[in-house]
């Protein structure tokens, strides 16, 4: 489907459809057409935009709180292990 300028028209979706696809959208696991529809909806719906922003912020907090660093003891152990191969 294309509009009068020859651009591909974005399929309009409602709030339920947008929220159903929200995690796939935020996680970047969505096809191009669905991504355009979700973005179009978020641009026009304040409630869903707020929900998306909150979910995005929560994901960032999860990343910050969970990113770990291998302890020195493990780093040394793995280097010795690989040297022994």
């Amino acid at each position, binding site marked *: 489907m294309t509009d009068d300028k020859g651009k591909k028209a974005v399929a309009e979706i409602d709030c339920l459809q947008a929220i159903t696809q929200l995690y*796939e959208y935020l996680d970047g696991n969505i096809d191009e057409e669905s991504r355009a529809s979700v973005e179009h909806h978020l641009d026009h719906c304040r409630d869903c935009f707020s929900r998306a922003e909150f979910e995005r912020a929560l994901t960032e907090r999860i990343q910050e709180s969970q990113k770990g660093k291998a302890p020195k003891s493990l780093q040394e152990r793995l280097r010795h292990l690989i040297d022994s191969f």
Partner: protein
Amino acid sequence: MHLAQVTVVMRGGEDAKAHFSRAIEETMDALYTVALRLTRNGADAEDLVAETVAKAWAAFGQLEDKERFRPWIFRILHNSFISDFRKKKVRPVEESDIRVNTCGEDDDDIFSLLETMPHDFLVWWGNPEREYVNKLLGDDIRKAIASLPEAFRVTVILVNVEGLSYDEAAEVLGVPPGTVRSRMKRGRTLLQKSLWEQATGAGLDVSDRMKEGIE
């Protein structure tokens, strides 16, 4: 012939052992992060990563596309945990093990903090600039993650923390991509429910935090 005796020439003239060593250096932190979320014990996590690296080297010659090293080694780690490690685990869990009541994989009940909590609280909650509060909330999130059932916990970590695609996470976990999709939805719902229970539960008063945030 033992694999260590095989010199596979990699792209750029790098041999297999050098390539493997570099790939481990690059994924070591991520492997430990996932192992820690699976075992919930630092010493067990180190053992699991070491076991994974040994198995990965033994099978490295079979990995045709070296660009897919990351999902491939995560799969070895997950399989090692399922097949060997969980059975012989003797050390106690170090993180709190708060269980959320509803944890069915097919449960469609969606819980959203945004719909449950006052907007002002969420604005305060999402503010990353206050160090003390930030630390406190980091602990809240760690407890909430630790409270997730294993299948949801590892899926959320692989996708949201380690940045794997749904297809890659499905490959790691040996499940269809649709299962990863539903686990992500359910895992995030359970996580928000757990955060809500912590916020309204023992010792935490949402209204006090909200007042503090607004002042």
